[in-house]
């Protein structure tokens, strides 16, 4: 009887311990001591039996010349080419997910695995990074995949809008051509370009790594130390030089985009954002939330009560040298003019009067909740930690973001918003209405 009581207390203590671990899991991170020249942010989270590891390197779109656009993505995909048939078998059979993508400034390599398979998967990932498989056949296959994706995206109004906005606002800042470049630039990329890009930008000193896992920090650190110690190095000062250059040769097409006729054409206003830093990052996100961040936002009035649209939203991309925010909606062709007039009135009001305190308070409250909502996913959290570390905003921004948002005030936001909505720098885009290509050129 007494033994049963002691056992029950023991079980209760275990419950308490587990609850504490869960509670602490997502609020802050620690820097993992690996003894390697790699910054590793670690966060323990017992919420799932999954480990996510993300490697971020400053090897985004802007690090390649305009005439080689597509190279950054091609290299990021190549970096995750599995070197041997045996490794392919091991990785796939364990259900491990590998993916890579690039944005304006960074390339991201992501690995998600069941934690029971983490030791095996990190070993294979290190092998891939040490000896990437750069073969002509594989490069050709990745180029074909990029070409197919480019064609498929022409059927998506949102994808066409993004690419056009990027070209218009970010092209002149050195991000022209986007991640995929065009057929012409892809064709010109050679195997030696990829090898050089890997050598210049994927050294261990350039890596920011984040791991979010239910495993213990000590175990993760030991595995990284063991497998990542022999990665190639590259002094940071010689790499990471932005290669701002001539635009992608196909860039002109994106400024006058056209798409098939749509039942619900898309109307968007794009606005430039200032270079990325903590302040502009926080303000631009809150502005997006305020302007078209769901029900109750300023542009939502076009949906309710006016009934002019079903989709009303805001799209945001923000890099070291600037960013773009697009507020968009989709409506009947016959309502386009009215919708444009209404949207213009909202932007004019922001320009002349500024934001109301009640709207700002609501946007701040929702932005905080949405931030937490996104951080539930280990993958999202690992990406934030590594990307913030890599782009200089600091990994601690992941946990500190809600406090920065809560600290915003009306006068700072008004100044920020007025700069964004300035009619001289805004750009209107219509897609899917008759002869939209001609209109967009004007």
């Amino acid at each position: 009887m007494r033994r049963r009581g002691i056992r029950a207390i023991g079980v209760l203590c275990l419950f308490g311990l587990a609850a504490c671990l869960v509670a602490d899991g997502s609020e802050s991170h620690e820097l993992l001591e690996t003894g390697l020249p790699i910054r590793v942010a670690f966060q323990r989270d017992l919420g799932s039996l999954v480990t996510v590891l993300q490697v971020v390197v400053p090897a985004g779109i802007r690090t390649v010349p305009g005439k080689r656009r597509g190279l950054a993505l091609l290299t990021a995909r190549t970096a995750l080419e599995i070197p041997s048939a045996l490794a392919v078998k091991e990785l796939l059979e364990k259900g491990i997910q590998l993916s890579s993508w690039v944005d304006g400034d960074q390339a991201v390599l992501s690995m998600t695995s069941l934690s029971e398979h983490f030791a095996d998967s990190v070993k294979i990932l290190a092998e891939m990074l040490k000896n990437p498989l750069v073969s002509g056949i594989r490069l050709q296959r990745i180029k074909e995949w990029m070409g197919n994706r480019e064609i498929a995206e022409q059927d998506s109004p949102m994808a066409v809008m993004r690419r056009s906005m990027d070209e218009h606002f970010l092209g002149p800042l050195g991000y022209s051509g986007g991640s995929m470049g065009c057929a012409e630039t892809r064709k010109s990329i050679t195997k030696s370009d990829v090898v050089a890009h890997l050598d210049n930008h994927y050294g261990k000193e350039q890596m920011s790594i984040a791991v979010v896992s239910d495993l213990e920090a000590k175990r993760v650190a030991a595995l990284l130390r063991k497998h990542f110690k022999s990665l190639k190095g590259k002094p940071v000062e010689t790499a990471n030089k932005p290669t701002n250059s001539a635009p992608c040769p196909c860039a002109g097409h994106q400024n006058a985009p056209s798409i098939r006729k749509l039942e619900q054409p898309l109307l968007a206003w794009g606005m430039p954002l200032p270079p990325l830093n903590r302040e502009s990052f926080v303000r631009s996100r809150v502005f997006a939330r305020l302007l078209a961040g769901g029900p109750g936002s300023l542009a939502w009035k076009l949906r309710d009560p006016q009934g002019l649209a079903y989709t009303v939203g805001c799209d945001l991309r923000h890099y070291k040298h600037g960013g773009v925010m697009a507020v968009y909606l989709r409506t009947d062709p016959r309502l386009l003019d009215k919708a444009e007039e209404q949207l213009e009135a909202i932007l004019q009001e922001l320009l002349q009067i500024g934001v109301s305190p009640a709207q700002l308070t609501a946007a701040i409250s929702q932005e905080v909740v949405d931030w937490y909502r996104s951080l539930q996913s280990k993958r999202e959290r690992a990406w934030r930690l590594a990307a913030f570390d890599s782009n200089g905003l600091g990994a601690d921004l992941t946990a500190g973001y809600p406090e920065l948002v809560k600290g915003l005030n009306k006068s700072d936001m008004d100044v920020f918003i007025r700069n964004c909505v300035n009619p001289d720098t805004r750009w209107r885009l219509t897609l899917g209405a008759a002869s939209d290509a001609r209109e967009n050129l004007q």
Partner: protein
Amino acid sequence: MKRPIVVVIPALFVLFSFSFTQRGMSAETQSRVVTLKNGIFAVVERRTDVPLVHMVVAVRAGSKYEPASQLGISHLIEHLILFGRSRPESETFVSRLRSRGGFLNGHTDSDLVTIELTFPRDELDFAVDLMGKIVFNRRFHQVDLDRERSVVQKEKSEAADNPERRGLFLMLESLFAGHPYSRSAFGNQQDLQQITLEDLHRHYQGLFLPGRSGVALVGDLDLHASVASLEKHLGKLATAPPADSAAAETPALQPLKQTVDIKRNMDVQRAHIWIGFRAPAYNHHHRVAMRVLSQMLGRGGYPLLSTRLSGRFQLVDAVSMNYLALEEEGCAWIHMVLESDNVKRARNEVDRFLKAFRAMNFSTRDLPPSRRRGVFDFMETAMNQLRLRSETGGEDGLQRALSYARFVLLNQRRRPKSLAAQLADLSPSRLRSVAADYLLKRPHVVITFLPEKTE
């Protein structure tokens, strides 16, 4: 006063493939299933990873319960629940919620309407109260009906602009011909125009009842306070339908008699093909086998269909397989995006592949131990991918709440097993047999969209 029935059920966690061995048993003890006084089933789960709570109310009011002359009425009601006002001149619920940081959303499928709410943990009582007021005992207004009717038509047109959604709707129309599962939740334009406020109230009052609802609360909450809040705000709602309310019956599902082959043109860059099959229902014992099959054939890093179609032959740009388990029957479909010139070859190749599948060795368990070395195990891959998907899906509190709310309404299995246990029961021969039953022997539906310019 009658106390709410509070039961701890570890079995609930069959929805996610959690193993409690590493996490301790804290998750198990921090969850409850409650039957409120008026019959609402509720699941409450404490997860403290972020300071939020997610709440889902699911109601047995999906599009399959719509009268044939009022198609789209369930989805229209979902819109009015979210965006209708309590009085025409008053503030919307979403505006009230926004000022406190909350997010409100909703979905209508064939079986259920779900209303979903995410809010800061300090707002629990406010949010539960608001959810009760949003979902139950509502009166709608003409001005809201007129506006949402026009918005739903725009939503429907947006879906028609999307080749993937358009093809899927067409496939379901033929796959479930004669049954309400054949129609999209959007309904049709003529019916939408004719639905009156009276129709709307009759349908709503017959279906949106506590006795037809399941509730899930997941997040950083106190179990005791949450159950008390549910009982206070939802437990006292009347549960009986008014005498003149709509009947909630659906016609029986008839077998698909012959294979259907439909070709359409659309102004798109690439051709699309959908091959649709009837598949196991939500409670069918073959459901997990079908999940593994669709994962193995068309999802993840190295699916079998992809090796066949985009490997040596390069017939498709992309191929995937999906499976949706509805209450009365499921459906599975293969979707290909490809150049128009390859349409015929790709279709033939899929046919050949499915016929050969019965004799295919896709697992090392098909081979004697001496011949297993170096052989790729597609089945093991798919099962591990499913376990991983289940774990990562469970990280999102709203997804957990949605799964729980569906589960309490749709589950009919007395002793549901965990995903891990069901996967352990599977064998290659069982998968072959399920594939033969659903993907080979029965009639199916093929939809092809060809780019207009090639015609």
